[in-house]
């Protein structure tokens, strides 16, 4: 059985359990298949939009949110566990200003932390963003920080190319989201790519 041939069937969930398991083992070792699978899975998922969809019953939304709420007490968010240590580090780094809050966000791959963003909220709503672990921006691209007030437009908050840096964000209102995206060199007026990291204050 040539496992490369199974990519489309896997994307369509058209393998039986045994075949799917064999393919997943193959996938761990085959870069080409992983790339092709990502593309074909995206296309397969687009098929979900084709059926004319009646409204789901209102109770379904409530049932999902009730069940999620009931489970929340069992979930220990990774980010909160790091809160104390992070706060100490950041507070030391910005000892010159009065820190009123810290928000940490990080991205993960297979349990390995890839990048983190720390938003330090100072007095008067001013804030700084500390980013680490992003790696340098790709050639011809820049990282761009954004402050997105709740219900408002994204405001460009600074460009940087080093993967580890600290920048001033200016005024950050409560419940705003701070995010970092990759943009073409020179920056953009509004985010055009998926955020690499984002944190809500």
């Amino acid at each position, binding site marked *: 059985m040539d496992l490369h041939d199974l*990519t*489309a*069937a896997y994307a*369509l*969930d*058209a393998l*039986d359990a045994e*075949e799917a398991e064999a393919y997943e083992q193959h996938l761990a070792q085959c870069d080409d298949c992983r790339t092709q699978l990502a*593309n*074909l*899975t*995206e296309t*397969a*998922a*687009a*098929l*979900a*939009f*084709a*059926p*004319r*969809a*009646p*409204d*789901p*019953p209102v109770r*379904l*939304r409530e*049932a*999902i*949110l009730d069940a*999620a*709420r009931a*489970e*929340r007490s069992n*979930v220990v*968010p*990774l*980010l*909160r566990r790091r809160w104390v240590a992070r706060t100490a580090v950041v507070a030391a780094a910005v000892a010159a200003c009065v820190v009123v809050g810290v928000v940490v*966000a990080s*991205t*993960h*791959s297979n349990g390995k932390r890839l990048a983190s963003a720390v938003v330090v909220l100072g007095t008067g709503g001013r804030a700084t963003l500390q980013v680490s672990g992003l790696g340098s921006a790709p050639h011809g691209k820049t990282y761009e920080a954004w402050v*997105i007030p*709740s*219900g*408002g*437009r994204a405001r460009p908050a600074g460009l940087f190319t080093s993967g580890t840096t600290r920048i001033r964000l200016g005024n950050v209102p409560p419940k705003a*989201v701070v*995010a970092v995206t990759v943009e073409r060199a020179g920056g953009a007026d*509004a*985010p*055009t*790519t*998926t*955020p*690499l990291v*984002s944190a*809500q204050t």
Partner: protein
Amino acid sequence: MSRPQAHLSDEALVLLAARSEESALAELYDRYGRTAYGLALRILRDPALAEDAVQDAFLAIWRTASRFVPERGKASTWILTLVHRRAVDTVRREQRRRTESIERAPEPGGSAADEDAWLRLQRERVQEALRRLPDAQREALELAYYGGLSQSELAERLGQPLGTIKSRMFTGLSRMRELLGDPGAEMSWTSTT
């Protein structure tokens, strides 16, 4: 209904859901719940089973949001893949439903009047792409994706060698990808509400 997170990207919402932000899960449901339910209903053709599949999938999103890696694909792909897999698992357990004619499944009666303009556009775009596929490729994709048939079952049902089925699925999906254009160019993040 107030949607304070309506300006966030799907990916940002998944990151918030990973931090147990219930409102982020609610917003993801408001964006994809209808599509998820429509898909599950098409596959399962039983409203109660479809509801169960959608609920299972959204709870899986809630539990595993921290494992979502934005660099590997869009959040909407991840969400709809979870929904699809649950619906297919269910339909395979409910073998008896298969005896019905899958390809002549009636369209569920939708209340299209209040359908979100974006969803309608997506639906028309994907339906048009499907229409433009050669019949054999469209049939293979539809029986697999909406029928929940495995490739071996497809080969048997259509009386074709397995290799032919694999090739139809691969060529059909690849052609669909071209017809749908470069999805990477799509603006999924909007800064306006």
